[in-house]
């Protein structure tokens, strides 16, 4: 078995190599698709090995904390930024925070590539290369322990996405691509500014160094300001209301499998940034500024996203808004800073990724045949697509939060963190009402979609046969949904050791106040 350091560089390198090979394949569609699949599956195998080791490590070591330096890593120093500027290094490592996101990226990447034959048109090599490039960049961002390198790849993921949307997208692809680009760039530059403000005094971009830095702010760059700057890019990338307006049009205009990758993986990059740079590097600001700012944005996203999802015109924009709504719960878990809430948030990122990938890929398969995803044009899809439609309903139930399927545990733990940590009391009864009503509204728009488009009698009675490849892709995603729902503990525990680091940072944390607010009543506080 190759050692962990080799695997660490192999995992992002394999898709990169695959991208080059695919470019060489040019317009030979079969060859390009075949090569892309080979390389992503190789990367998936390597990644699974890596993640599995890491998860087992967490399970055997239990909840004892560990230093990130002790983890297997791959490191090349890149010198300093400027003469006496902070140190930069290519430092790849896998820990509890990124392990399952790496797995998610590879798994969803493989699913997307395996189902992308239909839309690549005249440039199959270029499309496959860009998809592989997106996977590779995302992996680099997730694995990088150097925050500047993280930032660079965080931004670089935009390039393949921008081209994929801009070239292969729908009629409004130019507007969509530009809007996505402008928004995320604007947010990203704020993040860069914040990162520099933090790293220059610390003298290093390394995550551990940043975490332990006691820089207390200087001039206008006080810590709360740095925090807000840092978070700006992540808020846009996730996105959260009111910085979401690039999302729906991009999701609709992008080829549907690309939308699946955007929603399942790239949205998590923003949340991951909040986790690694917000929760771990600036926990105090997260607890004060973050709880107010991100917490309110999250609550707004939950309710506003759900309402927009109901009012959306096509299935893709419904799913985009639904993502907006569901990811709000992850943010609530993050701002809670409660160990269970954080574990739930990390878990929920993966759980949501799998479900949303399943929904969008299934929708894409229907779109490939129907040529439309406009809700009013579709009727009786369950009769026309018994297998794909049935799996779509299954993913819908998972998305609504039915226990036993993946999203329930994540949502439950995030909400637990939200209530227990006192963020609920902080944000007040209106926010609590919003958060809880989001759970109902999720069922409301989802069931309405199923009733309108999937039930009923179709215009033609001919059943569209399902391809074995489609069944394998959706079936394995469904199996993961069930696995995550029924035995989530293995995945939940992986992030345990890192979350312990937070408690280590605060040897005597301010006694958390267990509190709960009941909708319609004054906040009640109960001392623990």
């Amino acid at each position: 078995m190759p050692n962990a350091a080799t695997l660490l560089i192999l995992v992002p390198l394999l898709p990169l190599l695959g991208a080059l090979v695919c470019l060489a394949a040019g317009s030979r569609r079969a060859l390009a698709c075949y090569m892309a699949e080979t390389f992503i599956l190789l990367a998936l195998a390597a990644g699974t090995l890596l993640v599995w080791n890491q998860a087992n490590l967490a399970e055997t070591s239990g909840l004892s904390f560990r230093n990130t330096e002790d983890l297997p890593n791959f490191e090349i120093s890149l010198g300093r930024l400027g003469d006496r500027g902070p140190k930069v290094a290519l430092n790849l490592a896998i820990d509890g925070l990124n392990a399952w996101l790496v797995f998610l990226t590879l798994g969803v990447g493989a699913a997307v590539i395996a189902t992308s034959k239909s839309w690549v048109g005249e440039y199959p090599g270029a499309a496959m290369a860009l998809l592989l490039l997106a996977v590779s960049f995302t992996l680099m961002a997730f694995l990088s322990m150097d925050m500047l390198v993280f930032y660079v790849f965080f931004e670089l993921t935009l390039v393949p996405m921008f081209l994929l949307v801009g070239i292969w997208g729908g009629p409004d692809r130019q507007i969509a691509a530009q809007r996505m680009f402008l928004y995320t760039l604007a947010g990203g530059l704020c993040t860069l500014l914040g990162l520099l403000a933090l790293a220059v005094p610390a003298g290093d971009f390394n995550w551990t160094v940043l975490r332990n830095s006691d820089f207390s702010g200087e001039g206008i760059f006080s810590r709360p300001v740095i925090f807000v700057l840092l978070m700006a890019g992540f808020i846009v990338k996730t996105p959260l209301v009111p910085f979401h307006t690039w999302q729906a049009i991009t999701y609709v205009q992008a080829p549907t499998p690309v939308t699946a990758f955007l929603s399942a993986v790239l949205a998590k990059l923003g949340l991951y940034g909040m986790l690694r740079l917000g929760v771990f590097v600036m926990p105090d600001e997260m607890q004060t500024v973050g709880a107010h700012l991100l917490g309110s944005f999250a609550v707004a996203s939950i309710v506003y996203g759900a309402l927009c999802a109901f009012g959306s015109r096509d299935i893709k924009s419904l799913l985009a808004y639904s993502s907006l709504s569901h990811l709000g719960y992850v943010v609530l878990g993050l701002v809670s800073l409660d160990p269970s809430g954080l574990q739930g948030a990390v878990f929920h990122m993966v759980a949501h990724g799998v479900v949303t990938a399943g929904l969008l890929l299934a929708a894409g398969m229907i779109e490939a045949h129907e040529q439309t995803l406009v809700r009013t044009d579709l009727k009786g899809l369950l009769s026309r697509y018994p297998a794909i439609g049935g799996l779509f309903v299954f993913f819908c139930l998972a998305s609504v939060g039915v226990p036993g399927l993946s999203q329930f545990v994540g949502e439950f733990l995030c909400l637990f963190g939200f209530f227990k940590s006192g963020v609920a009391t902080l944000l007040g009864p209106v926010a609590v009402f919003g958060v809880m009503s989001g759970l109902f509204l999720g069922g409301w728009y989802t069931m309405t979609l199923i009733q309108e488009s999937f039930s009923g009698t179709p215009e033609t009675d001919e059943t569209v046969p399902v391809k074995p490849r489609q069944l394998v892709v959706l079936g394995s995603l469904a199996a993961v949904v069930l696995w995550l729902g029924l035995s989530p503990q293995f995945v939940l525990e992986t992030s345990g050791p890192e979350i312990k680091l937070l408690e280590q940072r605060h040897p005597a944390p301010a006694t958390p106040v267990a509190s709960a607010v009941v909708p319609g009543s004054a906040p009640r506080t109960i001392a623990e």
Partner: protein
Amino acid sequence: MFELSSEVLSGLALCVPVLPLIAAVVSAVLGSTRPSLAPLVASIGVLGAFAASLLLLLATAGHGGAAHIFHYGTWFTISHHSIDWEIRLDALATAMVCMVTFISFWIVIFSQGYMDGDLGSARFFSLVSLFVGAMAILVLANSLVVMFLGWEGVGVCSYLLVGFWFRKPEAAAAARKAFLVTRLGDVALLGALLLLACQPGSRALTFDAVFSAHLDAGIVYFVLLLLLIGAVGKSAQFPLHVWLPDAMEGPTPVSALIHAATMVTAGVYLLARFFPGMTGESVDLSRLDAIASVQDLAGGLGAITALSAAIMAMGQSDLKRVLAYSTLSQLGYMFMVLGVSGEPRGEHLPQEVIGVAAFASIFHLLTHAFFKALLFLSAGSVMHAMGHIIDMNRFGGLRRLMPITHASFLVGALALAGFPPLSGFFSKDEILLELWNGSLTGGPRSAFFAILFSVGLITAGLTAYYIFRAYFKTFHGEEKIPHEAGHHAHESPRSMTVPLMVLAVCSVVVGLAVGPTGILHHYLSHSSHWHLHESAFSVNIPMILGVLAAFTGVAVAWMLHKAAASTAKKRSMGLFESLADNRLYIDGLYLATLVRPLAALGSVVGWLDRELISPLIELGATVPRMVGGRFRSAQNGLLQFYALAMALGLIVILAMFTVAR
């Protein structure tokens, strides 16, 4: 009766939910190639579950006391407390699970005949097995979160089975309505779990941990209130009752199983566990007061539902809807008696009073399951013969054509109306007696209980009226068969009549066997947190009044409908029929005040976001785009633009940074 080692008990208990779940998977997989095997697999799975629960019942009948808790694994952990896959086996759970699996088995057998020839029958049997598994999890779970899994699981099965014929728009709409209305309650239930999880004492979220935790009276109140909302949604009580009549769009065996005998009683089961359980071990007045105020609500809502649903049942022309409203009304009885709160009464402690009330509700739950399932299956048998016509105006006088169905419907109707000595008589009497006793204490709530008692009594009369109205219209008068039935209208096949006969026998004997003999009372007294005291069966005033009400109801139905079953339809009951047609205008009220405004809000917000907010922000983005436009070339301008902008941005930011330093 006999001893079984703990390992054997644990294995048997595991069989109860797991066998139907395996059957669900197997019949779904097999069903795609050999649909005819699906009913066989499902019936074996459910029969296995029944056999296991019967063994458990017999093995634990002799020696009660503490509940057995069996551990099978961990689901997830929450702040160092693990949520475990555990079964909690006590008398109440065992009795429930026996009833559920027994009735499920006979309904699966009935469905074999009923669903014969339906294209999706493999899906049907797979979902029914899944439902039985989920219901077993709901009943047997030790952790509240696992119970919630079962609770949502039965809800999802109900959703999928109501919408079983999803090509019919009505079925699809009914499925969505059922899911969403119960979802409202489910969110409240989830809120209760979160509230309990936030209390250090009850964080483990098992029944025992919650019941023994030292909770504030305020927390007890909110937890119970949220649980009540959950129970009201699931058990279709006012004001969340609107989904159940629509749910009749599902296949009739589903209505019998899910929407009469089992799932809809889950709310009663939950409250019958929690009201006595939350009293705690010692007498804590503030806590009892909190419980009592939630109980008042439960009783009040139950009374409203019992009476209004009975009124709506009186005017229905759809036989299944009569039964649906009747289910609402009977569940209302169970909620009413759950409202009997623990004012100290004589030498009995408050806990004992609440325990006895919970016993009465569970007794009625059990007997109701048998006779209501029987009534639904009889209606299904009628539907089967009449070519899926269920409008009572279109058929009549079927007693000669369908003798077995006729006899079983009559038995069910007599049991429902509460004629001695059928099972409904004993359990309804128990409820009326508790309400009567409550009204005699002279405490501050005695007037409230007196009202509840009179509602119960009036409803008893109305119940007898509407069910015999349906009986006379369907089986008496001139023989009338709709043309959809073709020329082969006949008694149903054996696979359907045998379950009818079995359930008919049960409806006659179950009440008599376990009620006045004290068997059920004795058995359930071992259920922890119920402080039951021995009581002997005797004739009492509420019983006589109840029987009188039933006779009156039947007599009125006989006078109005026996002779004129086939002639004048709308006579003196015109008002009720118009009220019933409009469902007392409650659905319309919701549609106007909640459903449509919410949908309109969604559409408006969606439109605004699409058409107004995004372009508005676009305006702000025009400036950079104009700048960018200068650098854009015709060929591949987008990529260059990106690179340039990024570089420019970097320079600007670095410059700002230097200035700031």
